[in-house]
């Protein structure tokens, strides 16, 4: 498994936003890898930098933002510093993205077949007739019943789940190697959510497409991801396989995140929320960025900047006490 060449390799990525007075480091030293056909979960609270990471990969950072250092390697190509044109040609063809809001992600004035087909027209110069035929085929492939007729519908005639299927069909049109899914199921009903996740997994199996799944929903991650990257305040705080992360989390933040999932089995009177909120980029704390909210923080955490370091079994964490914590759980079990 480790001998495979990674499809996406983000290495030491630092992204800055230039505001009127400050240069804010929204991402600092973010590294992650996605292998071909792998589903990687990127988890974190709002404002942790997970969407900015995805936008950096897609080359869609707003004008005020820029990659200050680090590299993004995709399938043998370095993406930072790539021309706008080369980046645009890559988007949609080699990497595609689906968004949180299927209700607003489709243009209300065009039929869904037009919008799915447009990607093919743009990247492969398909004729309108070819694009339409392929769009119907893709709609059938993502499980839209009666695709030939639905293809001529306008977005407002479809339900949220159907629209997200259309978005996935659009993303699949050029059979990209990587799909970035930014909260793809957050706006959907739970039953529809399960269907969409199933669909994404089966498409992965069919086309060996890698998926970077960005979500704050650990339940989704648990169902889908093979590996998990946890982000906090613009940094990766823990990385490991899904089993490692859920069974024996190494970073206190991950532990708290997992504990905050409401469970039917372990009923507690109150929901275990993590106290406090994510710091904003112009006020990251000294030392470990999580220490103000960490129940286990000691003096060293408040002063010493933490680096992501390797742990046994190929995982890593940004807490200096992780090794200790892992050994404790092994001893306890």
């Amino acid at each position: 498994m480790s001998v495979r060449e990674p499809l996406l390799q983000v290495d030491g990525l630092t992204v800055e936003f230039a505001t009127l007075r400050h240069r804010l480091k929204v991402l600092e030293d973010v590294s992650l890898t996605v292998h071909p056909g792998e589903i990687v979960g990127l988890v974190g609270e709002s404002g942790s930098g997970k969407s900015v990471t995805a936008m950096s990969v897609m080359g869609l950072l707003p004008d005020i933002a820029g990659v200050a250092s680090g590299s993004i390697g995709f399938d043998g190509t370095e993406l930072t510093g790539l021309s706008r044109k080369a980046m645009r040609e890559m988007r949609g063809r080699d990497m595609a993205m689906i968004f949180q809001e299927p209700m607003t992600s489709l243009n209300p004035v065009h039929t869904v077949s037009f919008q799915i087909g447009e990607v093919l027209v743009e990247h492969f110069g398909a004729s309108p007739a070819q694009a339409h035929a392929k769009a119907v085929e893709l709609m059938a492939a993502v499980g839209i019943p009666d695709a030939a007729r639905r293809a001529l519908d306008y977005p407002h005639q479809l339900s949220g789940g159907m629209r997200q299927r259309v978005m996935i069909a659009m993303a699949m049109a050029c059979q990209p190697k990587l799909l970035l899914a930014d909260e793809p199921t957050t706006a959907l009903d739970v039953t529809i959510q399960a269907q969409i996740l199933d669909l994404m997994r089966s498409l992965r199996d069919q086309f060996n497409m890698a998926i970077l799944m960005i979500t704050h929903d650990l339940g989704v991650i648990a169902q889908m991801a093979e590996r998990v990257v946890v982000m906090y305040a613009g940094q990766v705080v823990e990385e490991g396989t899904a089993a490692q992360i859920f069974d024996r989390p190494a970073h206190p933040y991950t532990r708290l995140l997992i504990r905050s999932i409401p469970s039917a089995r372990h009923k507690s009177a109150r929901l275990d929320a993590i106290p406090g909120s994510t710091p904003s980029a112009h006020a990251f704390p000294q030392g470990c960025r999580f220490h103000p909210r960490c129940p286990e923080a000691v003096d060293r955490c408040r002063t010493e900047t933490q680096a992501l370091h390797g742990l046994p079994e190929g995982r890593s964490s940004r807490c200096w006490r992780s090794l200790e914590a892992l050994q404790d759980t092994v001893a306890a079990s």
Partner: protein
Amino acid sequence: MRQVPVIGPIRRGLQSDFALRFRRSRNAMIGSVLVSIVLVVAIFAPWLAPYDYEQINMLAIWRPPGGEHLLGTDALGRDVFSRILIGARVSLTVAGSVLAITLTIGVTLGMIAGYFGGWAETIIMRTVDIIFAFPELILAILVAAVLGTGTTTVIIALSLVWWPGIARLTRSLVLSLREEMFVDAAIASGTRSWRILLRHLLPNIASPIIVRASVGVGFIIMAEATLSFLGIGVQEPTPTWGGMIRDGLAALRTDPHLALFTSLALAITIIGFNLLGDGLRDLLDPKVRDQ
């Protein structure tokens, strides 16, 4: 037994829905009838006119309406009815040309400013601000005076004062659409900028611009008449409504029919376009549509 309301077919197309609402809107209906009449008159004026509009007859000056001349004759004995018909042609040619030019320039520049921002936006919008700083008509008169008289001059002068409004409207519409997820989705799937502008943004901003344009026709015709009235517009012997009203004004006490009937033609045309514009706005703007 109470009548159960019949629920119409759910897949009613957008077009038929629009047609239905259009027929129900009184403004839109009256406006479109008036506009159609004016358009037909303008297009077929040479065939509809009973007399040659240039034909001078010094033996029949200031004939009152009725008789041989339906709406009488003017100071040179020319048939007023024929001249009003040809005048419609002049007014609508100017209005149509100005509309075509201002929509092309205004929409293009407005979309560029709104979508790309940056220095392009700064240059375009500051130019718009500068033109807006002058009263529309005064600026048009100034330009017409500088360029000399003639149909082309009128078209250029009115286009110059009218495109900034279109550009500003377009930019603001594009700015709000720019935030829509479907634009992000199109960018994320590698769509070219010009394609996003033409295929995704333009159809979404079309209806407010159509409304603005149809209301604007009234303004353009009025402005053209004003320039002609002042004698700096389209020149004799081509009949213009503005020029005819000016000629008629001189004889208003003795022979009011020239000024009266020409003003009536002008009023009907402007009211027609305004009603059509109001009606279209009621139909196309979801905010006022269902009130």
